[in-house]
């Protein structure tokens, strides 16, 4: 018996042999996703919550507060907020947990063994054979054994796995397929499987089945993964290979990296700084206490005997007492509020109708709710081309066959072909004629298109064919062949039926040499009804050209000419070639192929070699050109983004000419650009030289000083160049450019350009480019794409955006934000992103301001109360200040504020720039906040101090007592911070006004209640402030003081802002002014005054564009350079 303690190297299992399989201790199918039960919930959850630093800090304060010598505040000032936070989090955790417990218990199914029985999914074990029925959800990774459908096919939907909704086919081995649904036979089945250990690759599987002494190769085609749903299949049987946490779906979960925003990182630094500052303040006060105790306190003992006669010990206790009092500088409640704000702003994205795409009924979705403000700081956008900039709806547009180019401008009549797709349009009659004339090359051309693909055909009714293609290109090509009379009808694993010019033919399918991103080609080997063996190959032209027979060289030249022409029109091209095979050679090749296919080690490498061997000396047939139309609004969006100083890099798999043309047609490259550099060197030195030359011509002085960066500070600063430049770099050059020795050279040059296009890029390179920019540039990156090949780049960038389009959902599933059209990107960034960033920054600035001001008053008071850690305010006020009196107004601001509305945001994309430069919240602005707070707290302490000094009420009674003073300062504070909020807020909705005024009203209501007779008689010791509100707030000099402090707190702010607006106006000021001016001109025609509070009305929204603000559309050049 072998027990594997270390990672599994290979999985062995035997069907229907539980004992044998159990010896390996494979995971069972039960997935323990629920963390708690009824009894463990409270202790476990609390334990978890107190591991969070914020809660632990609260707890630490609470401990300090129950030490009588230290306690300077009652315990409830900490307990009330702590309980609130804990309850909210616990409620959230509990609901999450209940949902996940639900899933496990739900399904039951049929397990095959000697006694038939039904079991719950969670009891299924590796090696069991189970039965699945139509529309059932697969919850373990299975090897398919047999099915109800002919040829042991099953159809599955993999939407849960990769989001693709087209049906996929899986096929069982014939040898297991024979078992059928005979329970006896199935129960006796004793095949042994050796396969790869659990991993997270959804698209491949390697294994071998040994049954009755024979070995059979297992690949992805025979595997049903957890997460699939069975469709159009009555039943099937499967052998469980991986269960529970070892399934590929579960292995894929939770692997994605946790993204944090730059504000998060800044906050962490600031929090450390604040802790230091807190310690500093407390130390100052502790030293003060030492001095005071020594000089004055010792003499004061007549009235107040000391508990300990040691000033040093007293100052030690004072330190901790002040830690309690001044704890509000550490922004603990800030984190909760930040989460709420981000959540709210994410909902706005989900709710936005202008990012809803009606044609596919897809709204935008914020899949991550923690990155919103980063959307307002994007500097680099990395975009895929196909499906992102373009619609990914492929139209067979042109072709070249045997040196003759087809596809001009006539509409072709396909009525000669009853099986034609009526939606198909082609513009060259000559091609139809050529087909009708039975031109052999033309026929081979279309035969190839009808045979060499992986499309599935569905024929629900006679003559009504539906193709299910994994890529739209294939669909377009097969549809083209169909219309020209070579109709792909159906396929089995061993044959393909096509109708050639009305006659049914069945080709024996001998091998499929599959497509992948490295090979960039696919081939099929078929035997024609006449018995002729042929290999048909289609693929990227460069790849095919390397594998052509030398006899084609003349044809190659002509075809190349045509290909360049196609590419110049922005079309996607594929070259087609074929070759006839020798029977004998093929037989031994297929033998070796089978061997390689069943090998466990390096199967792919061996297969690649074999493919390489047979795919040579091909004969060129011609090439196809497929048009992929640009999506609506793409050029405008790109122009807007580049006006917002966002650099757009297009990373595409297309060839250079195609990419370049798309670049021009979508406004990325412009005719008026000073130069567009093309890097296509074939060696490291060539590429280096080309990059250098490009840089020299942009900025002559920047050429030679090659970059030596200090190891510590790896940031490449932006270099300013006059003029606009573009850069196009080829796939193989990019490979060199990304090498370590050249990457900085590449980055510097590329970053000087307005637009960068990388062609022929592999998915890995996409991620590498993103990583490169992330590594050396202190900038926020965004990657946008729609296909599986963009996933790596989406995950690598700070923010990943998925386009839910034609190519399945894989990109969307790994993205942070998703929507249906590229043009929504400008709304996401220029409107939502900008607002989110603005709101977050305003929130942070204000939050720090209000808490610092609140806290610093205690600091000043310390100098007048013998550093005794006496609070200035009533304890109830301290408890409720953050929780009740100031929470809603600031939340209201950070959920509703907008400096200018969306239309104006679009008209002035430059408004986006401050976000990229981190202007709204940085260490500097934090420091400014602290200084501002310092000023405000000085005003808030010393004005009441001076106003109350030695004075009395209008009836001669006391007013300078502690309780009145506390009430006065806290009222001043609340007024000052509320008015300050008013100046921060630029968008006063009814809700925010209600929040601000409501909170002030709440303050008075709560204060009067707390200080009422009733509350006092219930609990005299908890409400000692009885009567203070009535006695104090009836005094005119109290109100005069409140008024004075409020005005004095905001006057310098208003003055500064106004003067700054005049002396060095920011872009925001300019836009606001324009907006104001326009509004004044629009609404009050003859009005002299410029200053007016404007009511943002519907009329402004619907008709804001006057001639002076219209952005001139650039004429889009259609031709290549």
């Amino acid at each position, binding site marked *: 018996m072998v027990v594997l303690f270390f990672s599994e190297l290979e999985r062995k299992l035997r069907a229907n042999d539980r004992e044998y399989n159990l010896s390996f201790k494979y995971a069972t199918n039960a997935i323990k996703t629920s963390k708690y039960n009824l009894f463990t919930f409270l202790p476990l959850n609390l334990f978890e919550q107190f591991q969070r630093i914020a809660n632990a800090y609260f707890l630490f304060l609470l401990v300090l507060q129950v030490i009588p010598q230290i306690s300077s505040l009652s315990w409830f000032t900490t307990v009330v907020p702590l309980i609130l936070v804990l309850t909210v989090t616990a409620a959230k955790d509990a609901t999450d947990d209940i949902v996940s417990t639900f899933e496990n218990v739900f399904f039951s199914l049929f397990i095959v063994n000697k006694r038939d029985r039904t079991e719950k999914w969670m009891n299924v074990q590796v090696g069991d054979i189970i039965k699945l029925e139509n529309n059932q959800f697969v919850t373990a990774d299975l090897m398919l054994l047999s099915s109800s459908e002919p040829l042991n096919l099953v159809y599955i939907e993999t939407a849960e796995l990769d989001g693709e909704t087209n049906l996929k086919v899986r096929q069982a081995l014939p040898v297991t397929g024979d078992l059928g649904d005979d329970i006896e036979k199935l129960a006796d089945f004793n095949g042994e499987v050796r396969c790869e250990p659990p991993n997270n690759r959804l698209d491949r599987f390697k294994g071998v089945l040994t049954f009755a002494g024979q070995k059979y190769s297992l690949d992805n085609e025979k595997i049903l993964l957890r997460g699939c749903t069975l469709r159009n299949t009555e039943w099937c049987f499967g052998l469980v290979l991986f269960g529970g946490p070892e399934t590929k779906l579960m292995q894929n979960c939770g692997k994605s990296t946790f993204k944090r925003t730059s504000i998060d990182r800044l906050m962490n630094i600031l929090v450390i700084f604040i802790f230091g500052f807190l310690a500093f303040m407390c130390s100052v006060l502790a030293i003060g206490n030492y001095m005071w105790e020594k000089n004055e306190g010792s003499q004061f003992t007549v009235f107040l005997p000391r508990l300990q006669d040691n000033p040093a010990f007293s100052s030690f206790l004072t330190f901790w007492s002040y830690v309690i009092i001044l704890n509000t500088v550490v922004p603990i409640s800030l984190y909760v509020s930040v989460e709420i704000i981000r959540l709210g702003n994410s909902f706005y994205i989900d709710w936005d109708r202008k990012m809803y795409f009606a044609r596919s009924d897809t709204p935008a979705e914020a899949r991550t709710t923690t990155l919103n403000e980063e959307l307002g700081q994007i500097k680099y956008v990395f975009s895929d081309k196909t499906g992102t900039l373009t619609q990914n709806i492929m139209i067979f547009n042109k072709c070249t066959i045997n040196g003759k180019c087809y596809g001009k401008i006539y509409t072709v009549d396909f009525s000669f072909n009853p099986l034609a797709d009526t939606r198909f349009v082609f513009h060259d009659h000559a091609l139809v004629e050529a087909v009708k004339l039975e031109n052999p090359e033309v026929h081979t051309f279309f035969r190839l298109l009808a045979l060499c693909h992986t499309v599935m055909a569905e024929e629900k009714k006679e003559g009504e064919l539906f193709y299910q293609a994994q890529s739209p290109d294939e669909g377009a090509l097969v549809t083209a062949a169909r219309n020209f009379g070579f109709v792909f009808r159906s396929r089995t694993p061993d044959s393909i039926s096509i109708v050639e010019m009305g006659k049914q033919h069945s080709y024996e399918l001998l091998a499929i040499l599959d497509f992948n991103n490295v090979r960039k080609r696919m081939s099929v080997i078929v035997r024609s009804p006449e018995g002729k063996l042929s290999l048909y190959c289609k693929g990227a032209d460069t790849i095919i050209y390397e594998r052509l027979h030398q006899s084609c060289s003349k044809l190659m030249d002509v075809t190349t000419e045509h290909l360049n022409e196609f590419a110049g029109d922005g079309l996607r091209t594929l070259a087609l070639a074929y070759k006839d095979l020798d029977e004998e050679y093929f037989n031994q090749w297929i033998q070796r192929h089978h061997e390689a296919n069943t090998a466990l080690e390096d199967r792919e490498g061996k297969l690649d070699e074999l493919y390489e061997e047979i795919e040579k000396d091909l004969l060129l047939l011609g090439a196809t050109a497929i048009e992929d139309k640009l999506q609506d609004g793409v050029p405008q969006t790109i122009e807007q983004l580049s006006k917002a100083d966002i650099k757009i890099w297009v990373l595409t798999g297309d060839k250079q000419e195609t990419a370049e043309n798309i670049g021009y047609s979508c406004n990325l490259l412009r005719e008026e650009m000073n130069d567009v550099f093309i890097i296509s060197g074939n060696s490291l030195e060539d590429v280096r030289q080309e990059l250098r030359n490009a840089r020299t011509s942009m900025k002559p002085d920047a050429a030679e000083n090659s970059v030596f960066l200090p190891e510590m500070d790896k940031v490449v600063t932006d270099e300013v160049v006059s003029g606009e430049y573009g850069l196009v770099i080829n796939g193989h050059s990019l490979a060199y450019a990304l090498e370590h020795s050249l990457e900085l050279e590449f980055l510097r040059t590329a970053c000087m350009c307005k637009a960068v296009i990388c062609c022929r890029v592999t998915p890995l390179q996409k991620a590498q480019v993103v990583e490169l920019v992330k590594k050396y540039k202190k900038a926020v990156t965004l990657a946008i794409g729609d296909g599986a090949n963009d996933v790596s780049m989406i995950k690598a960038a700070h923010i990943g955006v998925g386009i839910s389009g034609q190519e399945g959902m894989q990109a969307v599933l790994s993205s942070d934000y998703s929507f249906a059209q590229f043009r929504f990107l400008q709304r996401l960034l220029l409107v939502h992103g900008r607002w989110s960033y603005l709101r977050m920054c305003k929130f942070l600035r204000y939050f720090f301001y209000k808490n610092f001001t609140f806290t610093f008053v205690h600091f000043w008071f310390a100098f007048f109360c013998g550093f005794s850690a006496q609070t200035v305010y009533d304890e109830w006020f301290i408890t409720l200040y953050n929780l009740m009196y100031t929470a809603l107004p600031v939340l209201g601001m950070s959920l509703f504020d907008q400096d200018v509305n*969306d239309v104006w945001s679009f008209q002035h994309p430059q408004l986006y720039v401050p976000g990229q430069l981190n202007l709204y919240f940085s260490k500097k602005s934090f420091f400014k906040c602290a200084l501002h707070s310092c000023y405000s707290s000085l005003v808030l302490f010393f004005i009441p101090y001076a106003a*109350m000094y030695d004075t009395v009420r209008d009836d001669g009674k006391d007013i300078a007592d502690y309780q009145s003073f506390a009430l006065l300062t806290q009222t001043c504070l609340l007024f000052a911070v509320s008015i300050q909020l008013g100046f921060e807020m630029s968008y006063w909705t009814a809700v925010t006004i209600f929040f601000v005024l409501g909170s002030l009203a709440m303050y008075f209501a709560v204060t009067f209640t707390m200080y009422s007779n009733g509350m006092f008689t219930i609990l005299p010791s908890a409400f000692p402030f009885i009567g203070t509100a009535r006695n104090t707030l009836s005094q005119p000099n109290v109100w005069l003081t409140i008024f004075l402090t409020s005005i004095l707190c905001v006057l310098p702010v208003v003055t500064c802002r106004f003067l700054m607006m005049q002396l060095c106006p920011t872009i925001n000021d300019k836009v606001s002014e324009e907006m104001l001016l326009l509004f004044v001109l629009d609404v009050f025609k003859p009005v002299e005054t410029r200053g007016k509070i404007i009511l943002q009305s519907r009329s402004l929204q619907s008709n804001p564009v006057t001639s002076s603000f*219209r952005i001139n559309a650039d004429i889009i050049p259609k031709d290549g350079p």
Partner: protein
Amino acid sequence: DVKSYRKVQEDDDADGARVGGNEKFTNRPDNTAFTQQRLPAWQPILSAGIVIPGFVLIGLAFIGVGVALFVTSRSIQVLERDYTGDESGTPCASCANSNVQNCICTLNITVETLFKGPVFFYYGLSNYFQNYRRYGTSKDDNQLYGVLNPSDNCAPYAYNSNNQPIVPCGSIANSMFNDTFKLYQTVNGTRQEVSLDGKGIAWWTDYNIKYRNPTNNPLKDAFNGSNSGLFYRNFLINPIYWSKPAYELDTSDPSNNGFVNQDFLVWMRRAALPDFRKLYRRISQDKYPDGLPAGNYSLEITYNYRVYRFSGKKKVVFSNVSWMGGKNEFLGIAYLVVGSMCVFMSIVMLIVYAKFKFPDEE
């Protein structure tokens, strides 16, 4: 450009409308002002048209209020005399240096003109930290509400060495100010006592709600062990520094004793700042309806309260009040300064605005 972008947007919306029927657009977000962030709103902008006139208006208003405050404050008469006696030659020097209980010293005061009534008589202490935290918490609100057991807050003035409860407990009560004053007017060489009114000098809420004597009648019973509500069937003890028990604070008025004694209430309302004054008496308005007439007065001080040990100062203050309370020139001056600053800044802003807005005219 923006227009064509908008057009595309409208087309999308129109697409939806054309096909009609909401079933096909199940995912379409609601078109409300809230979800689309189109809530109607005010957008105030700090434009010159608001800021500059605003500053002028606020400035003028402040100057107006400031002048009113200043004039009012100037009209308030204050007469302040220190009687600490820490300097030799001052009237109370001998009392300050002796430890004699109820040492009497006399302060001569001359009132030049009529001291307009109502006149209030305060005592003032400085460098006295009633706002020290442990001092401030050293009292028991429950006890003062009639439940006599002292709480731990009062330590070390909760129990005496015989474990007898102290009533009222705590540092504040213990340190109650116990100098008393008598004011005489010298008319034609004879001293006439000026009658002082000590009724209602504390807050109404303190006297009627916050402080409450035990229900025993007479009050003395509550303190001599016959109070059945007490855990300790024991005699209660006065605060250590008190010379008389709580029920004998005012022998002339039985209802002015215990926790609701007016002087006690005034003392218990601890001061916010280390220099403070507290109301002692009013000059009786029945006898002196116009206030104190000009003339010579003498103040007889029963000197008990020791402040020199913490270098404190004691003083007496006579003052009248106005609508804005007692004399305080700061508020008026502050209003004047802030008002003038506003006006000054508005001029600066106007200049800056004009210079940067219309540079062509330069």
